């Protein structure tokens, strides 16, 4: 995967924008939850996981203590599992305290059809019974196919269906950026 945005790609969020968006999301989570009690952040691999960790760092700097962070792989719960060759599984790490009775915030990079989140809700159902489940995404690009919405959104990004939204994050990729790209003719 090329580390840098393709030439015809337009940068919608740069590194500074992403940091500010995550800071705002962190504060919104704390405001909504009235503090960090009982919070568990679960990133959806691959790029939801570093985002969850960054939100957790900001929450820790505000509240003064760390909230549990983990990851939740949804591969086996996808509704298109049978349509493609069997895919490699990604890590699921549930924090030692589990999710029962907790407020779980699912974190993903892009919210699109909503099918990944549906799969995540099913996956979560097999792990425990949270008190509430919320959704934080860096980008909401619209075009929902299921009745699912995000509670915390970094940026609402109106797109056409043929466009591609790409999130790169330091740690997985080389730099922080959200780019949008029309499909080449």
């Amino acid at each position, binding site marked *: 995967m090329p580390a840098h945005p393709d030439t015809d790609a337009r940068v919608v969020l740069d590194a500074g924008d992403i940091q500010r968006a995550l800071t705002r999301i962190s504060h919104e989570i704390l405001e909504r939850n009235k503090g960090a009690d009982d919070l568990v952040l679960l990133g959806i691999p691959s790029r939801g996981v570093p985002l969850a960790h960054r939100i957790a760092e900001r929450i820790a700097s505000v509240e003064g203590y760390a909230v549990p962070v983990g990851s939740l792989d949804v591969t*086996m719960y996808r509704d298109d*599992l049978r*349509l493609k060759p*069997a*895919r*490699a599984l990604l890590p*699921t790490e549930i924090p030692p305290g589990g999710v029962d009775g907790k407020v779980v915030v699912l974190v993903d990079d892009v919210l699109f059809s909503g099918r990944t989140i549906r799969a995540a809700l099913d996956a979560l159902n097999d792990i425990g019974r949270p008190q509430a489940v919320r959704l934080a995404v860096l980008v909401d690009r619209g075009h929902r196919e299921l009745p699912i919405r995000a509670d915390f959104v970094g940026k609402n990004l109106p797109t056409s269906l043929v466009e591609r939204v790409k999130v790169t994050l330091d740690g997985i990729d080389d730099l922080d950026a959200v780019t949008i790209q029309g499909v080449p003719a």
Partner: protein
Amino acid sequence: MKRHLLSAGDLSRDDAELILTTAAELRELADRPIKKLPALRGRTVVNLFFEDSTRTRISFEAAAKRLSADVINFAAKGSSLSKGESLKDTALTLEAMGADAVVVRHGASGAPHRLANSGWVRSSVVNAGDGTHEHPTQALLDAFTMTRHLSGGKPTLEGRRIAIVGDVLHSRVARSNALLLHTLGAEVTLVAPPTLLPVGVDSWPVETSYDLDAVIPKADAVMMLRVQRERMHGGFFPTAREYSRRYGLDGRRMATLQDHTIVMHPGPMVRGMEITADVADSERSVIVEQVTNGVAVRMAVLYLLLGGSEPAVGGEE
């Protein structure tokens, strides 16, 4: 198309690494309250066992059920197989029942290959042990157990020294392990009396030795094999006592191992023959863990063969 798992030798390094990393994720499932994943809902897995087996069949059954597949157990005893039905007619019956995968154990080497390549069935065939030929999922679970202890869970055994000791001649486990461990980068040494090494072993990607005491101090893992007396028709060694003294693993020999070296056995073991009770029950022994890992590895194999629109691993044909 890759549809079957017939031989450990069919697996490329990428295939083997994919199975091991998938198994590592699935291994975590054993610690969760709900030990179930939906990946194979509505798929049917048939366990077709022409030879007696308890642990392998149960392991495959648990693996398939944890992936939500429907499981049909078909054992030779008490079925039409004991009334003289041929492999072909059994296969046609399974095909008519709509099996998506057939897990087969057979006393004849090559039976799973025949089942897979005859055109009798469209399902995936997984070899669960054929005669003295191969047992690829056992090799995968052995390799998985080794990577957890020797490589920090990374799916490689590069440069690790593995000793496989005992009745190599009658062991399908030894052949599958030799092929797979070599693929994963390990250096394998087979240790056995000359009478218990198969003809043509020089074409395997392994070293051989007749001297256990010279090999095991350098090994990172020592795998003891059962002496398969039920397959022996003739004198392969003078007495059990002599075999045990020269090729058995006892406390004295265990003391010469490196600190990190693990002791393995594919089971069922004969205490006092190839392994003494104090070794089998020691801290180094990972024999019980091998059984736990077996379920995770078989889940990985079934998921990768059946989970998607087409299999992600396995042999051509």
